[in-house]
């Protein structure tokens, strides 16, 4: 054991919540350490956001090539799409992201401490690494330990035939028949990857709709139909009883409409839910309160114990997204530094889903607005009516803008279709700056772009549409 070092802030976890918290704390003049037990950059950089986007890019290239004839390009017979090469490319992308982070850690003068952290006391983090245990004395601890795929009883994850996304995403073997347990964000994105590579894909979802029925019903319906058209089987209302290795492959047993069914595949992805990493941190001993398994925090990300803070997937905040974790990292670093903090408005954070067609949403759906007693109106613009979408040959989808009937406040926006995850970016500032449908309609958007569809949807909401 070496002598204890003394910090203002020790951040446990180096994901997009943790590293932003650490960098911002350091920029705020606080002496900061960041502890990481497994992957620098966390799930996002290593087995989440970034590698999955690399795989999805490969998948879109495969689809484009398959569709080459539409553009008058003859490839002269079938082409070979090497899935293993796609995984290698995605790992390369991850490697470069890791390098970038290492640079940033040095740049911000954050002490990077690899190892498994545990709170020995309120002011002491002990870090167990291969080369021994170190004690870090600190005034503040930020728990940014994230979450992991949740495995329900009956699902026997062996890492080969039955995998979580963390295992699947680094596996260079291409499955021929894939069952995906859970039609959420991870399930739908992976369905797109593997269907694009020609796998038989079946999504088994317990809820009555994809995305657990949380997104706009029309958007969800369009995705479901598109999936089915692409050959992705979507079984909703199907409760998985077991998923386990069977011979060279795996078998999923589920019940639907009171009947038991089986599905034999060569791979199963278990992507039903996530669970927070709160174990073995010493939180119980210090009396840190939990809320349904997540660390309970206030608007400043403070836990029930002064000096201990929590952010990201481990905290009981509404969204489990990389960028909401980063926003929380920013808030916590400012709160620790005693700077004024603006509480995060979670309804103003976009929720992207990178399946094909892409989905992106922000704020309330029409139904949620009505639940809150708001009188909302919806303007819908189909990409079919967008010149750019037609030129791109990608006209599936709609933009739905939810507008408060009284003041025209932008309550939400729901997009399914080409570049939805990019287009949604223009809506967040209107909400953050409290622009109304008036400003949205008065702001000119370049033509021809897919982004025009948002403004046109606002015009539809206000009954001022000219182009549809």
């Amino acid at each position: 054991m070496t002598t204890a070092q003394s910090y203002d802030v020790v951040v446990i976890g180096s994901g997009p919540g943790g590293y932003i918290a650490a960098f911002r704390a350091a920029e705020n003049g606080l002496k900061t350490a960041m502890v990481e037990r497994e992957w620098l950059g966390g799930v996002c950089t290593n087995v989440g956001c970034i590698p999955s986007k690399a795989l999805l890019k490969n998948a879109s290239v495969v689809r484009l090539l398959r569709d080459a004839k539409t553009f008058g390009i003859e490839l002269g017979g079938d082409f070979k799409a090497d899935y293993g090469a796609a995984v290698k490319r995605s790992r390369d992308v991850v490697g470069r992201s890791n390098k970038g982070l290492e640079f940033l850690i040095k740049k911000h003068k954050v002490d990077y401490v690899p190892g498994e952290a545990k709170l020995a006391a309120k002011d002491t983090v002990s870090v167990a690494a291969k080369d021994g245990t170190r004690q870090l004395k600190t005034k503040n601890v930020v728990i940014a330990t994230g979450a992991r795929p949740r495995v329900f009883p009956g699902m026997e994850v062996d890492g080969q035939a039955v995998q979580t996304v963390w295992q699947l995403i680094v596996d260079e073997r291409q499955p021929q028949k894939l069952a995906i347990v859970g039609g959420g964000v991870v399930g739908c994105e992976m369905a797109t990857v593997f269907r694009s590579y020609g796998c038989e894909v079946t999504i088994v979802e317990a809820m009555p709709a994809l995305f657990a029925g949380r997104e706009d019903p029309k958007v969800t319906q369009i995705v479901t139909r598109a999936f089915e058209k692409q050959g992705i089987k979507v079984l909703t209302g199907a409760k998985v009883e077991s998923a386990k290795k069977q011979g060279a492959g795996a078998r999923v047993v589920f019940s639907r409409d009171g009947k038991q069914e089986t599905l034999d595949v060569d791979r199963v992805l278990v992507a039903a839910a996530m669970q927070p990493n709160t174990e073995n941190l010493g939180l119980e001993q210090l009396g840190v309160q939990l809320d349904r398994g997540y660390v309970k925090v206030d608007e400043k990300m403070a836990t029930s114990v002064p000096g201990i803070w929590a952010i990201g997937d481990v905290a009981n905040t509404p969204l489990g997204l990389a960028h909401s974790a980063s926003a929380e990292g920013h808030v916590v670093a400012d709160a620790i530094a005693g700077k004024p903090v603006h509480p995060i408005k979670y309804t103003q954070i976009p929720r992207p889903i990178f399946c094909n067609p892409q989905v992106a949403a922000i704020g309330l759906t029409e139904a949620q607005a009505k639940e809150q007693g708001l009188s909302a109106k919806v303007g819908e613009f189909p990409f079919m009516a967008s010149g750019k979408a037609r030129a791109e040959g990608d006209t599936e989808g709609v933009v739905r803008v939810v507008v408060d009937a009284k003041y025209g406040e932008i309550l939400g926006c729901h997009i399914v279709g080409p570049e939805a995850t990019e287009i949604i970016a223009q809506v967040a500032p209107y909400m953050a700056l409290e622009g109304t449908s008036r400003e949205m309609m008065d702001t000119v958007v370049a033509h021809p772009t897919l982004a025009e569809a948002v403004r046109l949807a606002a015009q539809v909401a206000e009954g001022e549409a000219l182009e549809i």
Partner: protein
Amino acid sequence: MPEEIVMPRLSDTMSEGTIARWLKKEGDPVKTGEALFEVETDKATLELQSYHDGTLVKILRGDGSTAPIGTPVGILAKAGESVDPSQYKGGSEPPAGRGAAPPAPPQDSPPSGAQRGTASPEPPAPSAQPTAPVPAGAAEDVRASPLARLMAEQNGVDLRALAGKGSGPGGRIVRSDVEGAAKTAPRGAAAPAPGGPDHEDRELNRVRQAIARNLALSKPGAPHIYLTMEIEMDAALALYRQLNEVVADEQSRLTVNDLVLKATALALRKLPDLNAHFLDEKPPKLRVFNRVNLTVAVPGEQGLMVPVIKDVDKKSLSQIAREAKQVYGRIRSNKPAPDDFQGGTFAVSNLGRWGIDEFQAVINPPQVGILAIGAAAPQPVVRDGKVEIRSMMRVTASVDHRAADGVYTADFLVELKRLLEHPLTLVI
């Protein structure tokens, strides 16, 4: 935060005011309710009172200068605040001396007399003429979100009062600030100006448009129609006496006019097209108000004054009585509150006290109606075939025929009569 003293909007027709003279000097202590300066409006010269205790640290517009409403004319540091007057740009214009304030030269004529090198006093620089009256609360120079602006406008919240104190970045006013202000605003203070919220603009239908066009040929301006009705006031007078026997304080003592005001307001709720402004635009519109703010004709020192009593339909008789007394008091002492002249939706003129039996009043545009009230006097009337003595009051409605017809106006008078002849309807 030091308070900006702004040119108040003292009447619906006022778009700018001239500072006749400052009654306080820079550095003078000021108490709430003390007069700061005299304003010459298109109607009268009025004193503007301070709403805070503090010190007048800076005069931005000197004696004789004209400023559009809403323009800061001075800076008041509240008690305990220290302010560096030099941080305020513009500076006071040279005082032109009491009574010697030369009018600003018309913009399109060259300044006369004030040649360089002569000893003649320099006329105050012509202030920028606003192209349109600044609507109260628009406050373009205040940092606020579009949503906050819209909510402020529709809820009668003056954004200038929140300037720099918003909870957004850099003090930007956001939704929650306006919501907070709307909740805590004192009654009346949030009174929306006409042209602001709480109304529905309705284009005239084709028939009304034709009526408006044709009638303007024989009676230009607002073509008046006059309808007179006799109302039996015995029950109302009995109630008024009864109520006055039990009033809590002198301030709440009713006058007959208070009953008339309340009845008028309730009748307007039923016949709302008279509670409106006629907007002579293309196409012409009728702005029908949701609030009933009655303009009452009051004799002032220099002539007729028309203060406004707000939300008369929603107030109790004693509240109307108290507010009317306060308003009349402020007018008589020449110290009206800035919003005393704002937001009138219909007018009532009562010459009953002077024994006038009946008269016809002139509409105060852009309002579309005014009610002229005569004296309630004992008259022989026929009841069940017999002659009886009853207190009869003659009321005459003058209505802009472009906005409403005789039948609609008659319906209004019938409702007014019903209310006053069954006066308990005014208390329940």
